[in-house]
């Protein structure tokens, strides 16, 4: 028995250390954060997802910086480093008559500053989307059409409706999204307004995510669509084009990975200093390193080497991961440039600099 316990201690000690290290790594700067209470019809509302963003609404095409939830009294608390934040509350639930509804609102006091300690966000009411807040359909008003490819109907494609085009008709800021039926047709009940439509069908079947060669994608050729109250508009055929592998590769090469006079290079290694291939290097302008990076490298080569092309000098905050984006998943490689505690690296314009090695670890 004693030997067994000794062996277990040896087995568990690394686990404990790993947990403590993980907890330490997760600790935000100080004890700052936001707290508040969420209401619906002036009553506390529990189970609300509290999303915290770094940017205002029009720029918010990224995942939230932090997420929390409200308790039975509608109260929430989210630990955050110093900075300015935008707070949104969201809750999807089912009414007593079986109707699914979405409750949502932004804090009227956005943005909220966090310095030290907890900043109190004044209570605010969520509104039912489609009723008080978002796209409230008006009687006899809407759009319909048929999504096609090469003249054939496209079933189970997604049609996304945006109220503005600032996002480039990409990302999750669309107002509505519907899926086409077996005959490729779709129907959107809407209020009067000015809309931009785009339709996509991913081979993998998802509603969101980066498009790949072979996926179908097109904006509606008649964008924007002006819709009057009481008008039911038949858009007719909404043709999609297939993303060509060659053009897709060219566009990526022309954009993110294209060579520039300013670059940093280096080598991706694991904890044993062995090269790791297939790792993207991300450059951020913000030391918090969240959301979309401003530059991304092509995957590291077999010897771990990478080149990150930049369009200007400055301080960039450098991270590396095996996935191109999305939530961190078990099995991914992830790491940061650790030449400075804040992961920053200063780059001179029109120079090619080496930042040495970036060590990545596998997350399980």
């Amino acid at each position, binding site marked *: 028995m004693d030997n067994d316990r000794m062996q277990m201690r040896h087995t568990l000690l690394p686990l404990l250390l790993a947990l403590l290290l993980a907890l330490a790594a997760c600790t935000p700067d100080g004890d700052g954060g936001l707290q508040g209470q969420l209401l619906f019809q002036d009553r506390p509302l529990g189970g609300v997802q509290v999303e915290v963003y770094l940017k205002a609404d029009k720029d918010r095409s990224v995942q939230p910086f932090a997420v929390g939830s409200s308790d039975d009294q509608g109260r929430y608390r989210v630990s955050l480093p110093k900075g300015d934040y935008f707070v949104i509350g969201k809750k999807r639930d089912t009414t007593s008559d079986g109707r699914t509804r979405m409750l949502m609102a932004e804090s009227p006091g956005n943005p909220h500053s966090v310095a030290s300690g907890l900043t109190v966000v004044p209570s605010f009411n969520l509104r039912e989307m489609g009723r008080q807040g978002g796209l409230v359909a008006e009687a006899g008003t809407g759009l319909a059409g048929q999504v096609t490819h090469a003249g054939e109907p496209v079933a189970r494609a997604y049609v996304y409706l945006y109220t503005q085009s600032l996002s480039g008709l990409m990302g999750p800021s669309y107002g509505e999204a519907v899926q086409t039926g077996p005959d490729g047709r779709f129907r959107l009940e809407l209020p009067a307004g000015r809309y931009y439509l785009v339709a996509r069908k991913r081979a993998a079947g998802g509603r969101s995510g980066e498009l790949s060669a072979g996926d179908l994608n097109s904006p509606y050729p008649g964008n924007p669509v002006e819709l009057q109250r009481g008008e039911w508009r038949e858009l007719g055929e909404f043709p999609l084009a297939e993303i060509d592998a060659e053009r897709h590769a060219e566009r990526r090469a022309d954009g993110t990975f294209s060579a520039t006079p300013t670059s940093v290079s280096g080598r991706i290694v694991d904890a044993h200093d062995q090269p790791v291939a297939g790792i993207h290097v991300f450059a951020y302008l913000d030391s918090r390193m969240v959301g979309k990076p401003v530059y991304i490298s092509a995957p590291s080569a077999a010897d771990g080497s990478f080149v990150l092309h930049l369009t200007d000098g400055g301080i960039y905050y450098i991270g590396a991961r095996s996935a191109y984006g999305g*939530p961190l998943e078990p099995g991914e490689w992830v790491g940061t440039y650790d030449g400075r505690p804040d992961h920053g690296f200063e780059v001179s314009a029109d120079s090619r600099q080496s930042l040495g090695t970036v060590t990545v670890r596998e997350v399980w």
Partner: protein
Amino acid sequence: MKLWFALLIPLLTASPASALVLSGEIRWQGEVEFAESVVIPAGASLTIAAHSRIRFAAGGLEVAGRLLAEQVEFSGRDWDGLVLKNCDATTRLRGVTVRGAKTGLLVQGGAPELVELTLRENQVGLELRGKAAGSLRASHFADNAKVGLFVKDESTTRILDCRFDGNGKFGAYLYRARPDEFAGNRFAGNGTGLMIAYHGSDPLVAGNLFVDNETAIQVDRAARPELRGNRLLGNRTGIHLYRRADPLVTGNLLAGNQVAILIAYSSYPQIVSNDFRDNPLAIRLEYQSSAWEQTKGAAARSSELATRGAFGGQGQRTVGEEQRRAQNLEGLVVATGNWWGEAGTRELESAGFAGNPAFIHDGRDQPTFHEGGADYPLDRVRFEPWSRTPLTELLP
């Protein structure tokens, strides 16, 4: 490229983007070798004749149309593997072997039929994601460096009668997924046989066999599966419950494990109606304290929620504290109605409810533990009432 195969109605388009895009009805037969990716787009169909051998020196095979393959071997060295993108049940792989790939087979959505596959010596044998459905039966996952079978993204694929042998880290890993069935599988000689992790991973795991693994089953980070009617024999650790793991553990046989169930960090399972036999330790608590949970649990989880995306350790988590916090803060781990083996039962009958069973390590043996500069009381196991007879009829 070396090709000895027949193409029926072929249309090959060599693409400068390092991919061959094939359309129409394609048939491969014999030995086929590629040094670039091959794409079968939606609407196209690839049939590979039995006993064909497909080798990739680089790239991989991506199918968005239909693939029919039986008794076929795919191989290469550090190649990309097969990708099935939203393929329906008309895509069928039977008796297919995939080896040497980064990910042997990646199923992104859809519901392909996968039978008698062999995934061997890949980094990851098979990954199911994107709400994949369908079934995976009688397949063998062996010697994959990291994970034999990875199930993610709310995939519901039925996983039946598979074998997982000698996979480096995990035989199978269920990450925010709930297979419709997970039964009749056998795990032997893996680092961890079955890992079930993160909130949203709450499958029923029933009627599986775990033998000689370092850890047979680990439940971690707010996963809440039901472990029912499994046999866990001769593992170093039978079930490891870690970081708010609250499974229902019932009707299992745990025999000959060095530690049958190890519980740590605010995990409050229901351990009911199982048979424990010949385990030096039936239950061991480590760093398990409702006082720690009350003092530090929420703060630790809040820190996790508020971190800085991928480069802070966790990103885009959508589960809140309400869903993760412990409901039971009485300092007791419930393990009632179990049969503790013949010797264990004799000890209990002798000592009664107030005894301190030698086969349980809890707060009776170690009143406190030290963590983060403070002492916390170690929880206790509530082991009464107990069964006087075996319950499971699960023979080793």
